[in-house]
């Protein structure tokens, strides 16, 4: 089984708090992998460590057996890891088209070109991605004017523009209506199948997790307490105690 992403004893301390405590994560090629855990379990911090948005206190991150622990965040993206954020992170005053086009331009090595006009550069590819996420009608609308669900979709489109092999999504359905949530779930499934994407995501909605995840990792106070399939997770006493059994989490 090919391992796409592996973390080794990954750790992050913020003063006296250990937010991520010796996590050994393993993401297989082509799977949809969910990281779940109660609030403050360290899910977002784990994502930030993998993409080097924050530096780990200890431990290593390997992407396809290559050590990427301390390389620049923009270089990690070039290697094929794209991410979205928990709080939607888009370009407020750029149109949908421009936003997605930039990712493609950057990925294909155009971003330093001073003399080509962007008007028609990679137009078909950009429009294909916009259509795929269902924003075709909003092609020339500024990001900030989109409704919340569409902003999330735009961010997904921006990450897809990087043509990643591994997609990290921090709460992709947060704040969405049930309809939008299931559309997004369908989209993630479709992407994983059609493009052979490996997806790592965090999610609060357990219905979503059990619907699309191939495997689950459970974080609890920074520690990885469970790895396995959704069925195994439901059967695990430890997971129930820490998380699933307690509906207030």
């Amino acid at each position, binding site marked *: 089984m090919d391992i796409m992403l592996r973390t080794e004893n990954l750790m992050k301390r913020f003063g006296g708090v250990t937010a991520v405590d010796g996590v050994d994560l393993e993401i297989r090629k082509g799977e949809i992998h969910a990281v779940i855990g109660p609030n403050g379990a360290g899910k977002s911090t784990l994502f930030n460590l993998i993409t080097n948005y924050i530096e780990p206190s200890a431990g290593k991150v390997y992407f396809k057996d290559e050590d990427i622990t301390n390389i620049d965040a923009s270089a990690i993206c070039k290697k094929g890891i794209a991410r979205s954020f928990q709080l939607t992170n888009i370009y407020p005053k750029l149109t949908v088209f421009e936003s997605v086009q930039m990712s493609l331009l950057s990925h294909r090595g155009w971003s330093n070109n001073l003399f080509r006009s962007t*008007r028609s550069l990679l137009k078909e590819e950009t429009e294909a991605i916009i259509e795929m996420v269902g924003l075709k009608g909003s092609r020339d609308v500024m990001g900030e004017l989109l409704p919340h669900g569409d902003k999330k979709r735009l961010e997904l489109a921006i990450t897809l523009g990087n043509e990643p092999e591994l997609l990290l999504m921090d709460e992709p359905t947060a704040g969405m209506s049930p309809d939008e949530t299931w559309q997004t779930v369908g989209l993630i499934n479709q992407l994983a199948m059609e493009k052979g994407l490996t997806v790592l995501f965090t999610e609060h909605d357990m219905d979503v997790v059990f619907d699309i995840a191939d495997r689950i990792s459970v974080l609890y106070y920074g520690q990885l307490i469970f790895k396995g399939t959704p069925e195994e997770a439901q059967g695990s006493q430890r997971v129930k105690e820490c998380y699933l059994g307690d509906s207030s989490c």
Partner: protein
Amino acid sequence: MFGVDTANIKPMTLVVGLSVLVVMVGLGFVLDTFSVQVLTEALIMSLFAMSFALLYGHTGLLSFGQGAYFAFGAYGFALALTKLHLPFFLCILIGIFAAGVWAWIMGYLCVRLSGIYFAIMTVVVSQCTFYILFQWYSVTGGDNGIQGLLPPEFLVNARHYYLFILLVVALASAVFYIIVNSPFGLSLKCIRENIVRSTFVGIKTRNHMHKAFILSGLLAGLAGILFCIHTRSVVPQIANWQSSGNAVFMGILGGASSTLGPFLGALIWVLLDAFVSGYTERWPLVIGLILFAITFFAPGGLMGMISSYFTKRTRRRITET
């Protein structure tokens, strides 16, 4: 990579640009000498405003230190001309190169800071440049500056110099337009809008900001050179924070994010300088009041105001039909 695909420049922009150019050439022949000189200065200042606009309007970096590169260009040119006695056009290239090198070094330091710290650093650089030029008597002539910067004979006539400036500014604006509409230009807008997101789509943000800083320095340097030929002299005051503030004023007044904004801002500023200063010596107060009104009522500058009027009108028309 250097192939400019002209087919993709909006035909409308090309038509408007060429018509403006034709009108401007015509003005050079019909206006009186004083007005021609005012227009010359407006054109030169529009390059200075453009250098600010590239950083602020396009990249989101508030530079209060454009005077440093304006002065470095001017002094580089003036020293090459008066001390080394090199050919005129070679001196212009040397001036631009000097401004570029200074922007490369100072930009390296500045882009490591963000927000207000970036702005303060640019002022510091501008003031340091001023004091170097002001106190290094043996080379720069201190507060006397350098006089007698005469262009070649065929440019001495004010109308001829005007046409020369018009040509240079037209070429520089065309390059500016191409750059802000290139993939690099788009990456600058992305950095302006959201630097974190830009990093995570693989843009080397600091590197791109540094390049924008150098390009802006080159433009400011070119403006400085043309300005000192226009006035036949160079003084250290063109490096200080007030001179830098002029670039900020022109950029904000016209609209730093739009292509035409710097031209409009520079034109208004030079006209105020030329005509209001005849009525009252307190003309900077007028400028202050205008800036006050702009920041309150039209944060996008005059061009921003115009374009938002058109967007609203189109939207109204769409909803009516």
